């Protein structure tokens, strides 16, 4: 089986999360490997969250805001 990375995305509620919604509204298809954590602002992203996600098995992290 091909390598399937797990990706965790920290998305700002006001922009990127809305963008991800819009991708849905537009039915843009993308791989299922992404798990989104909605946060109040990209300022909320503590570097520790990123390390913790990696510790919990994520292979890549997307932060966007």
């Amino acid at each position, binding site marked *: 089986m091909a390598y399937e990375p797990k990706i965790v995305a920290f998305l700002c509620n006001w922009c990127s999360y809305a963008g991800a919604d819009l991708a849905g509204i537009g039915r843009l298809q993308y791989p299922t490997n992404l798990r989104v954590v909605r946060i109040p602002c990209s300022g909320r992203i503590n*570097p*520790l969250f990123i*390390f*913790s996600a990696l*510790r919990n098995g994520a292979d890549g992290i997307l932060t966007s805001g």
Partner: protein
Amino acid sequence: MQKLTKEIQDTAKKLLEENKVDLVVGFAKGSLPLRSTPYFARTAEQAEELVWNQFCENNLANYLKKREEKVAVVAKGCDIRAIVALIKENQINRDNLYIIGVTCQGMIDRNKADELVNGKEILETETNGEEIVLKGKDLEQKAKVEELLYDTCTRCAYGNPVIYDELIGEEQPAKEPNFEDIEKFEALSAEERAQYLAKEMEKCIRCYACRNACPMCYCDTCFVDESTPQWISKRANSAKDNLIFQGVRVFHQLGRCADCGACERACPMGINLSLLTRKGVKDVKETYGYEAGLNPDDKPVLSDFETDDPQPFLMKE
């Protein structure tokens, strides 16, 4: 050195006698060769114990945080950068601090000296200007001081204190910061870097000496000691968690690290810690043109925002 020691003692005595300060933090002769030890002088007599030599490696900024009394400190360039950074962070009250700045040519790395004499016991040293003689039983080895300096010191561009109330010693020639070590590491492939770091981190025993030696690590509860939430394992057997510990430490040091090398000097396992901290120092300098602890009046770089700040971390369409 003798001259500097005398000047420091005189200054300290005067400050104590005139009650300008309650305490002078400096160095005294260590009980072993190649060592000086941090020393607290509260009286003029005690001030006689103060020394200055090429073994005054500890960062004395560590002893100045959240003090109520009036303190004078004998401080070299890197100590003062840390002091400046700590003043910005409300950890040191500048009004209560008298800085006896001492120009510095670098401190001697005991490990390098030991290596030079193939592990023979050094019992005594003698410094003659740019030369040092290491003496012991059946041992008398001459060496250039320059060759025995800590790597941190050879790369240091701040031999002249950036702020002080009184300056002792001759002005040092200006130097440019040197990041060759980091550039070399950056040139490696991602795998090579990961491999190297994994190897280094396997050595870590989580004694936290690095953290405790660091003047900028002063949190009451360090994130590694948190239990709700528990960010990482508290045991040392995971090189990955060890790297997270060091990685987060670097994050916390961004724009703050004075590059004094205290962490690395404190490490009993000889981990190349300055590789990580200095990568942060270099990135901050390259991205924002900022070096920590140079100006007590500017805003810490990562707390400030300018509209034309570079944003290389942003993805472009």
